[in-house]
């Protein structure tokens, strides 16, 4: 089912902050739309870069796709499942199983080893407990992390990023959302990091939606879209009003 459905399908997605931002109506809300996406499709294993300036709403879009924010309208369908049609714990479980997220600051869990950070991804996704350690270790080893018991704080920035990538891909997600993954890195490391994320997603067959305001990243993607681009005729049309 997942291989036939698009990894991501967005239709008429609208979101703005302010009163009723979590509800399905934006009545009596004078705030501008932060996200107003008419349509966006991503085929399985496809990789797309969304560019745009800081604060334009790219991260908000990713949160909406992950089901962490409630849109005022529209639909986000991941692997055939309307994310916002799922309620509460079922949506969380769906996210844990099918969507991986990578952040600018990695957001690794402090006080947990590199291995445990990856194992944490299995904890909430229904993977049998006996597989957690071996699968996490194999993934880290594949990504070149040897000091698996080390606290992430003691690892280099590049290694921390690898742990974050391993965690995002641990459950073999359909879709990986990368939010400014190179913003904390120098140009050299930045290229390596994007290369790592892309190749890891490719190996796992996961689609990648990367948002970045870093122009140097664009050359690495076959498909690049500007967040602010409004193109109603394009099947990947995105309309956004900057905050």
């Amino acid at each position, binding site marked *: 089912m997942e291989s036939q459905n698009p990894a991501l399908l967005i239709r008429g997605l609208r979101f703005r902050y302010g009163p009723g931002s979590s509800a399905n109506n934006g009545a009596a809300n004078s705030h501008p739309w932060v996200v107003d996406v008419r349509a966006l499709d991503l085929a399985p294993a496809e990789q797309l870069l969304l560019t745009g300036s800081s604060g334009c709403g790219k*991260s*908000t879009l990713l*949160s909406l796709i*992950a089901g*962490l*924010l409630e849109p005022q309208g529209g639909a986000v369908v991941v692997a055939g499942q309307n994310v916002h049609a799922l309620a*509460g*714990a079922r949506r*969380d*479980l769906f*996210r*844990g*199983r099918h969507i991986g*997220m990578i*952040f*600018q*600051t990695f*957001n*690794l*869990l*402090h*006080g*947990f080893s590199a291995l*445990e950070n990856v*194992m*944490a*991804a*299995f*904890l*909430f*996704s229904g993977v049998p*407990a*006996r597989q*957690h*350690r071996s699968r996490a270790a194999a993934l880290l080893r594949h990504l070149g992390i040897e000091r698996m018991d080390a606290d992430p704080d003691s690892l280099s920035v590049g290694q921390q990023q690898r742990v974050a990538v391993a*965690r995002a891909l641990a459950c073999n997600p359909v879709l990986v959302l990368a*939010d400014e993954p190179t*913003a*904390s890195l120098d140009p050299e490391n930045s290229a390596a990091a994007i290369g790592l994320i892309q190749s890891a997603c490719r190996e796992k067959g996961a689609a990648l939606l990367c948002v970045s305001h870093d122009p140097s990243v664009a050359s690495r993607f076959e498909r690049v879209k500007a967040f602010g681009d409004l193109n109603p005729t394009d099947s990947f049309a995105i309309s956004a009003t900057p905050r």
Partner: protein
Amino acid sequence: MALTDFTIVRRSMTARPFSTVTTIITVAVAVGLMLVLLSMRDASRQAFERGSGNMHLLLSRDSSPLVSVLNGVFYANAPPRPITWQEFRALTDTSNPDNFVAAGLDWAVPVQLGDSFRGLPVLATSADFFSKFRADPEQPWRLADGRYFERELEIVVGGTAARRTGLRIGDTVIVTHGLPRRGDADSAGAAPHEHTEFRFRVVGILEPTGSSHDRALFMNLESSWLMHAFDRRLAEDARAGVPTVADLQDRDRLITGVYLRVVDNRAYQAVFDALRRDGRFVVAAPSNEIKRLFDIIGNIDQIFLAMAGVVMVSSGIAIMLALYNSMEQRRRQIAVLRVLGCSRPRVFGLIVTESAVIGLIGAAAGVALASAGGLMVSTVLRQRLGLVVEPKMPMDAIAAVVLATIALASAAGIVPALVAYRTPVAKNLKPLG
């Protein structure tokens, strides 16, 4: 080993060791206090009840039944006014058909209190004290070593007294006439003096009974009468020699109390009424007097328990504050867990579990603290008040306090758990600054 929810709880606790440890100590102190108070309350009641053993009534010439029990059973003071041996004989004379008291008695054990050894009371009594009276109603007296006294100048040492004095079989004891003042084992009472002329030999060491009698030494009545006869004779003639049993006069043969046991319930009422009507004695039902004593101090008990309850609730508030304050630092971690698929109820559960675990560890530490504290309090009570209190923590009380603590801790976790539950995820994933 796979990562579990409990691993997350454990890491969260160890990530803030100072806060966790201080919170656990707060809970432990509250639980310890509560358990010590509960156990001491039961233990002191038991200690008091054990002292009167299998006696039904206590006869004396004290000022009131309660004083009679405190003196006659707990060795508080020597009763000032004695009962003569003739009175005792008449009271227990079964040959007189009009003697309703004697007819209703199972046994009567005469006791005489007024001497001491190194601050410990020495009770003069008859051999029936060991064969008929039982300090612990469940158990007859048992000897750790030696035998009971059979003649004058033989002494039997109670279990606690033996431990405190180090006396052994064959040791010589010189008895002091007079009891030490309460609460100060080293200072003497009214004109105490040693009877060096009478050298007692230790013939028996008793097993402890957990009663007030454990800290006493025991000799026969004639031994005590001889010392008192000697004092009387010296007062009359400074050159008087040491008397023998043959020299004893009726005025030397004095006792301070009689332990009584009646044959049945009907006899109890008859004997009790007859003795009260008699008017010459104070008759006390020790169990009633002890109950009355506890009714008096029961209120204080409840105040203490209420205070311990307040301390428990405060410890719950301490848990809540510690977790609540930690929420600010943990927003990002909670947000990351949510991204990984952790549901809101599960986040809520993690925080409540952490709170409950703090409660559980605190309660366990509190039980340990209470055991140590109970031991300390019982030692102080024994040394300062001479009250043998064995703090026993009944399992059901421990279980109740531990469960109540966990419940309280879990409840204390609800507010921080709600904060965690409501943590906005998207907002807390953004880079700092």
